[in-house]
């Protein structure tokens, strides 16, 4: 029945497109509303079909976006996808807020050692592996042809840092969907949040250094200032946002769902326009509320109620932006890099967890939790294009190809890992939207 509904919706969408505005008219606000409604319904049902197949709903949302998006069926066009990107910011902020609320520092204290080892060995080690893999694959990548050896190494490092980025969004959404809790869940959450910070800082440093290799010297003070503004500024603003949310939750008993959604919208839209990181802002706010107030649970529940439509559209739109074309062009090196990344995370994750004397489930499955990739890598790919305009687009295509493959496979693997670790359904939270996510 669900498949029939999906097919009928696709038929209606196709009919609307054939009757609708002429191509020359372009995207209209009505087209945006239509695409939003269509993606909400179709991705939701696709998610439930995937769930019945034992796959994450999230993969269903992503898959829907890929299939109905501009690269395959074109039921949702490029301008429609562009207009729906407003959901990305809100979803990112809500997800980061959730991640922050999940980060109970007291209960995570025993895991800090493992998180530290994993961040250093697995993340930094995988950056080295990816750098090596990019360097060795350069014969397949034409944009390396005119670079000197030093420049090649520098760009390989930048691409290595870019491609190591993980996805707190996917991880948090999967945890929420699976109602998982336990050492693996908490450790992975801690690492993806931590490595998000590490990757942002590393990218800023290595891209500045690499840029100087091309003769366009960068002002180190200016670069440091920008980085400090982005990281420290975001954290400070995040603390302020957290205080406002805490005051609201403390004194106002109703309407907090709307308030939290509005705050997420504000953080996302204003933050990115003043070069702050919405993810860090929301994360800091969430951590503050969880660890310094008694309203963490209520905030978590409010986010779960409001976030379902936002998540569905966000992941469907993310799927629609998967660059299938690029995947075909950079196929072989992208496959090599995906395998290198997965191998690096798995083996180095095992090594780091063993050194940290982590529980068995963490040793066995931590690598799978590091594999999901989405928003941050895409954002860094765009920055790469800006930083290296001469060949940035080609390098970005490689990153997009890797992200596309990881988007399709990694959530499935991590879901399996959570099931094997026996942490599914262990969350004590009331499953308000458990079936939903």
């Amino acid at each position, binding site marked *: 029945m669900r498949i029939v509904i999906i097919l009928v*919706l696709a038929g209606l969408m196709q009919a609307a497109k054939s009757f609708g505005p002429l191509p020359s008219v372009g995207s209209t606000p009505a087209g945006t509303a239509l695409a939003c409604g269509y993606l909400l319904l179709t991705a939701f049902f696709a998610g439930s079909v995937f769930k019945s197949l034992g796959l994450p709903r999230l993969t269903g949302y992503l898959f829907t976006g890929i299939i109905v998006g501009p690269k395959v069926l074109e039921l949702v066009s490029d301008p429609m996808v562009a207009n729906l990107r407003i959901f990305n910011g809100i979803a990112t902020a809500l997800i980061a807020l959730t991640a922050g609320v999940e980060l109970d520092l007291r209960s995570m204290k025993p895991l800090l050692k493992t998180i530290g080892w994993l961040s250093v060995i697995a993340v930094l080690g995988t950056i080295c592996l990816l750098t090596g893999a990019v360097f060795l694959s350069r014969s397949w990548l034409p944009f390396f042809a005119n670079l000197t050896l030093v420049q090649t190494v520098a760009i390989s490092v930048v691409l290595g840092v870019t491609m190591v980025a993980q996805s707190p969004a996917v991880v948090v959404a999967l945890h929420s969907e699976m109602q998982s809790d336990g050492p693996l869940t908490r450790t992975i959450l801690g690492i993806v949040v931590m490595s998000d910070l590490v990757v942002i800082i590393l990218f800023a440093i290595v891209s500045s250094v690499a840029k100087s290799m091309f003769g366009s010297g960068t002002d180190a003070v200016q670069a440091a200032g920008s980085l400090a503004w982005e990281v420290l500024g975001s954290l400070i603003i995040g603390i302020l946002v957290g205080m406002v949310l805490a005051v609201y939750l403390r004194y106002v008993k109703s309407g907090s769902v709307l308030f939290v959604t509005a705050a997420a919208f504000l953080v996302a839209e204003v933050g990115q326009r003043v070069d702050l990181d919405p993810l860090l802002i929301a994360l800091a706010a969430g951590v503050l509320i969880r660890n310094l107030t008694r309203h963490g649970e209520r905030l978590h529940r409010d986010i779960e109620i409001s976030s379902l439509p936002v998540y569905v559209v966000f992941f469907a739109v993310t799927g629609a932006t998967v660059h299938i074309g690029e995947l075909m062009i950079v196929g072989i090196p992208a496959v090599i890099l995906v395998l290198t990344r997965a191998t690096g995370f798995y083996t180095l994750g095992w090594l780091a967890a063993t050194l940290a004397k982590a529980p068995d489930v963490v040793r066995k499955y931590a690598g799978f939790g590091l594999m999901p990739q989405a928003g941050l890598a895409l954002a860094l790919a765009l920055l790469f294009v800006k930083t290296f305009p001469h060949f940035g687009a080609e390098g970005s295509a490689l990153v997009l190809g890797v992200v596309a493959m990881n988007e399709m496979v990694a959530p499935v693997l991590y879901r399996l890992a959570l099931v094997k670790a026996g942490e599914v359904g262990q969350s004590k939270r009331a499953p308000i939207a458990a079936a939903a996510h």
Partner: protein
Amino acid sequence: MAFVRPFRRVVSGTLLLLGLLGQDMGCFGQAAAPATTEKPADASPPGQEQAAPPSRRPGRIPDMLKAKRAARKAAAPAAVPSGTAGAAGASGATATPGSNTAASPGQIPLMEEPPIIKPTPPYLGTAPLLMQPPPPPPPPVHGIQTASEAIKAILGLVAIFALAYLAGNARIQALEQKLQIAQVMTAGLPFVLLGALAHMQQIGILSANVLWEIRPLLALGLGWIGFSIGFRFNARMVDSLTPDATRMSLHTTAFPFCSILAACALLLVWVEHWPANAEFVRDAMILATAGAMTAYSAPRLLEARGASGSTVDRIAAIVELEQLAGVFGLMLVAAYFRPQASMVSWQLPGTAWLFMTLGMGATVGGVIYGALGRIESEAEFSLMVLGSVCFASGMASYLRLSPLVVSFIVGIILVNLPGGPKDQIREALARMERPIYLLFLLVAGSLWDPIQWQGWVLMLLFVATRLFGKWLGVVVAEKRTAMNLTQEERRSLIFSPIGALSIAIVVNAQDLYPDATVSWMVTAVIGGAILTEIIVQVASRSGAITEPEPWGVS
């Protein structure tokens, strides 16, 4: 083979009839478009191409088209100056009655092709006699340009959102009741004014660029209002209607409709082109449709004054039927008065668009009905309701139909099909109704251009003729039906407030037909709603006991 000949005759006769009907409907459907008969091909300057006709025309028989093309080809070289013949012939735009006569008898089709419609800028013909011509529509805008503009808009929107939230707060509502302004607040009119203020250049929160970005909310808001109203029309409610109530509502709808139509059409005919297009008919019909209805708050107002339950129910039933008539009127206008032809790729006759509207609503409603059986949690219900309304209204708006009407049909389908989680849908609607409704009014207010005085003149006429029509409808209905209205009921029906649906109808019209004259109608209806609200308040103060409780779409 003997049966073949009469069969052929029947088929060809049917095709001919269909062709005639299609041509007839096609002309009706395109009546709204400012159109002129295209000049003969030889009148065009050398080197200039004729405008291409729509790719598909309604009511054509393929054989006739072939014959026409053959005739065109034969006539084109002689009629078109060299250099343009090829292009014109290829586009098929040079066919004229004159060229038909040049074709051989064998090539003459069964039917004359109607004159080719060519859009022309409005208001270039006869000069308006009473009012100045409206200004041309504003240039298109394409999104927010600068970060500061974005931040200003976001902060402004958040501030307005906070106000919307405060408006729903219980303490604030209690204060409104104390100040006896709850009805005005419930109708959401302050948000219309807030939207208009936010749109002002000096404030610039909802600038044209920002409005372009948040315009999808308009379709969603219209759809939401339609869906909410449709979801109230269950079979039980219709069964409970007495014939007298039906007749009464017919009168209280038809009389104001006719009076507004006549008066506003007369006024509008001075400012729009006569007889080149039928825009004044369209505009007057929209105004009449918006004015014919009474807001849902009317029975509540009665209830608050201490009227008996049966009185309130009677008035509520009449109001429900009036709303149905209003939606039906909008459906007809949206189907038969299509926007400019270039906005959609398919050119269909008006009746086909009418069926398209019905079919779209029924199909989407059926799909959603099938889908809702699979839903488990509260969050999923909210998602499904939001997705359904967004999809239905987006699709309607995309095809330049009314999102309000299509969503209304979806609502009717969902509430009247057996079984299904109706209570959960009702809860989901109630949960999201207020914020979406207020946001819609905000956007509606920002689209309002109250500067043009013509709109205010229209408003005075609109309010006066509406009151007159309502009064006449009640008087005639009382004489022709067995209904004995109490003084309170009579006053409630005559001094009836204008509700969100009326505002939604003109805002929908503005979305469909971005002509300058439609903005006058928005002024007429929004201004009329405010003026009527004041009249209703003054009328109700005399016997008022308490103010009605706030509710969603008023």
